[in-house]
């Protein structure tokens, strides 16, 4: 395994320890203000402003607070967190430490997906080194009264645990079933205490923002989508890998960069994202247009889109937690529908019924998984209708 990253990532320009040394002398409000000034929104895909999350957790009452790093990167087509954890783990740990300073937490937990178990040794070694260097432990970097340590907890193969409340359930030894929201984790999180759950990339950027200043971050990107973003590019292109690109980039620009200009469609945001056909390649990847956690899967001219839809639906049928009716049964029905389409046995009226069902799933499911699981099906059906109906194979 090697990490294919293209171009220089900003992460390589920030020296380990740099951010923490600066943050040490900042007040919690200043750290949160820096996040606010940077304009960063969560890099996991949902795009919730990081500063607001931190601020809510800082304001919440609790005898104990937690910082959780969501390293349960399970979205198909996403692998940038793996690259960060391999090449720049110290930035992530620093980000967690900075977040802990901001909200007043003493315990940090990295929830690492079981599939990345091979990273544990390296991460544990680094944690040990950090403890030796007093980057973790009691009175971190001599900052009196600031104790913080990080432990690693492993997932065991459940995509839904990437959803923050499911992740917390899993940490508490439960089935990874998302909770009712509200209350939100910033108020009632791990062990019922205020908890922030941040994506790996978000925490790494937080370190960069402290090290390089919020203005630097804020100057990149668009009005509503600030900063650079890592993209995981895979599929039918010449140079798959991880790219750092500014938010707001159009699909066409991105495809040119990665060598996928002849694509007929791209899947933005992984299985839970949407499938964008060639005619819409001028759209922007940004929170104001197509939001994403950074997964871009390129489909070449020869790809059969129904096969793609089939693969996505199989994924969701397996990964639904099975808690709420729309997601549990709905995904199975959509998969059944895709199979009917493949066999050329689906009536137009039933296809419409399935699309309506998909909309219900988007509206009525309990968590983000169920709400976004029909996206791929719906966007493929609406954009590639000529590939759907009347199939003979």
């Amino acid at each position, binding site marked *: 395994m090697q990490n294919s990253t293209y171009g220089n990532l900003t992460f390589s320009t920030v020296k380990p320890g740099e951010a923490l040394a600066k943050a040490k002398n900042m007040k919690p409000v200043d750290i949160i203000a820096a996040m606010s000034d940077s304009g960063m929104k969560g890099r996991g895909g949902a795009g919730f402003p990081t500063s607001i999350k931190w601020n809510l957790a800082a304001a*919440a*009452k609790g*005898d*104990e607070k*937690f910082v959780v790093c969501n390293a349960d990167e399970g979205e198909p087509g996403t692998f940038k967190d793996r690259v960060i954890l391999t090449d720049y783990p110290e930035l992530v740990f620093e980000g967690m430490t900075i977040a802990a300073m901001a909200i007043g937490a003493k*315990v940090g*937990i990295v929830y690492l997906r079981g599939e990345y178990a091979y990273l544990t040794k390296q991460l544990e070694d680094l944690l040990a080194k950090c403890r030796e260097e007093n980057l973790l432990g009691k009175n971190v970097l001599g900052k009196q009264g600031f104790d913080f340590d990080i*432990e690693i907890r492993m997932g065991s193969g*459940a995509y*839904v645990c990437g959803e923050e*409340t499911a992740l*917390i*359930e899993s940490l*508490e030894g*439960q*089935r990874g*079933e*998302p*909770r*009712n929201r*509200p*209350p939100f984790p910033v*108020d*009632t999180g*791990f*062990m*019922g*205490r205020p908890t922030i759950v941040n994506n790996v990339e978000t925490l790494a950027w937080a370190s960069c923002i402290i090290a390089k200043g919020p203005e630097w971050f804020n100057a990149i990107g668009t009005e509503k989508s600030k900063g650079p973003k890592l993209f995981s590019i895979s599929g039918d292109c010449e140079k798959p890998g991880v790219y750092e690109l500014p938010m707001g980039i159009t699909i066409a620009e991105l495809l040119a960069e990665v060598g996928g200009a002849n694509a007929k469609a791209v899947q933005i945001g992984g299985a839970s994202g949407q499938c964008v056909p060639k005619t819409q390649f001028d759209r922007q990847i940004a929170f104001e247009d197509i939001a994403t956690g950074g997964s871009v899967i390129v489909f070449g001219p020869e790809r059969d889109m129904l096969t793609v839809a089939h693969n996505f639906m199989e994924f969701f*049928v*397996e*990964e*639904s*937690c*099975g*808690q*709420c*009716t*729309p997601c*549990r*049964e*709905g*995904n*199975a*029905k959509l998969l059944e529908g895709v199979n009917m389409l493949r066999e050329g046995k689906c009536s137009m009226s039933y296809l419409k*019924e399935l699309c*309506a*069902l998909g909309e*219900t799933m*988007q*509206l*009525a*499911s*309990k968590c983000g998984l169920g*709400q976004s699981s029909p996206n791929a099906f719906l966007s493929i059906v609406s954009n590639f209708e000529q590939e759907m109906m009347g199939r003979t194979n």
Partner: protein
Amino acid sequence: MARINKNESRAPRSMQISSFPELDDPKAIGATITAEIDGKDVKVPMGTTILEAAKKLGVRIPTLCHHADLCVAGVCRICVVEVEGQRTLQASCAYPITAPIKVRTYSAKVRRARRHILDLMLSKHYGECYACARSNNCELQALAKEYGVDKFRFGHPSEPLFEVDRSSYAIHRDMNKCILCRRCIRTCIDLQEVGVLEVIDRSDKTRVATFMDKPLSDVICINCGQCINRCPTSALRANDPTDELWAAIDDPKKHVVIQTAPSPRAAMGECFGLEPGTPVTKELNTALRRCGFDRVFDTNFTADLTIIEEGTELLLRLYKALVEKDETVALPQFTSCSPGWVKYLEHFYPDYTDNLSSAKSPQQMFGSVIKTYYAQKHNIDPTDIVSVALMPCAAKKFECNRPEMTSSGYKDVDYGLTTREMATMISEAGLDLPSLPQSDFDDPFGQATGSGVIFGATGGVMEAAIRSVVELVCGIKVENLFDHADVVPVRGFEGVKYAELPITAVGPVPEILAHLVPNWDWLKGATLKVAVCHGTANAHRVMEDIKAGGKFSECHFIEFMACPGGCLGGGGQPIPTSPEIRAARAKAIYAEDSGSEVRKSHENPAVLELYSKFLTDGPCGHKAHKLLHTHYTPRGKYIT
């Protein structure tokens, strides 16, 4: 990692009721908020769910996974509503109102979503409504009707997907009917803390199962049947023996006798459209006779007998412990009339089976008396007697099948019948219970006291025991201590109740007990400490306290009932159940007690006659021991 919250509810957090952020502004605490629901305004306290607020307005929102007794799950999604400003629909049962909101409960989006959800449930729900025990009492069926389901949009299973688990004497599980609302799980894990059922697997393979998918008879199920009462469909139901029973009734050789417990009589009316809390005792007697039962007896007779036996046993234990200083005597003594509780103890606290009173439950005492005393008296061959018990209980079905319950030489009780099953039999016989004439119980076991009646409510056994102990031991009228002989401190639905009864005087102890110990003065100045507890979750708390040597370990006598509310909330009672319904039934039971001519067990003439003519060596004597007492099996919780 932090180790906190050890004593919080064990319910998965996803299933717990939503809390809402504490407010810094003290004036806001306890504040009310105005919510607009379907164009109407309602003022509700901060944190009220949309569902509750709508109820206040008289707006009905359909629910399935929601239940008044259970924590919020928010999984079925049938109760979704549109909240202005929210991208997605919100589950009204789980959405606390913390700011002014506008809600639409039946917009086009909402209606379509609900219809889809119903269609999805029906696509997995095998079976036909007319061939279902819960037809007309099924929440899924009712919603399908309400939402005009006229076809199965996403299909309907033509073959069963699961085998029905008929292994248990008490409870049958048919997962083909399950819609995964998880009420049974929340009942079993949170409400009862027994932990037999849980969600297994994930995605569309999700199902409710026992540990390692073992049959229900092989796991630690205590047969309380609370899951049945909360199942919206017939995925869980009691093991129904009515066909066999009809056959026995139709057999002219068989002498079919039935005993009826007080709780079914306080609840049966619900199955015939009466308000909860309407007693139908005397109409029921008529109905049972018309169904073909040869004799109709009152279980309260043996409830009175239980009080005498169990009370005597307690006095003997106390004597051994306090006077003879015998340290092997197990105290506190636990009641043993609730078979769910008995099995709970056998599984979870096997070291404490000696604490259980060896007295059988009223049902089983009745069984052995009928096939011995009654058979002799009326010259009936016991093999021709079919002994039936109408009980509010699922666990009674298990109890009557315990191998040790054959002290009459035969199976003491042949069938345990639930209130629901009896209601079906009465309907089958074409009878409309509420309009039947009233009639009395048959002799000789038709005479009972108010003390027997209140066995149906939590605290009842204790109240009956106190009434008798006070009069028999202290030699004073119980009315002198408690107005109208109502021992109010042990009444009510509080989870665990504790009371002390100082014994200031010891009167002349009547003959029936006097011979048991040489002298009764040792009781003078003692303080009888008692506790009452209902629902096994509360039993768990009390037992842990006893294990830790806490306050309850100093009690002398503790009443335990497996079901919330006691027998009136039993697993064989009419569905639905809720705190209000149980309160209404309790009212009916206490009213029957209040109206009884005789209200104290030791004054029951039939009981006294039994001792003088049959159990001639008295309470806890040799004969009583053989017929009216039993033993227990420490089972443990490990399953092999």
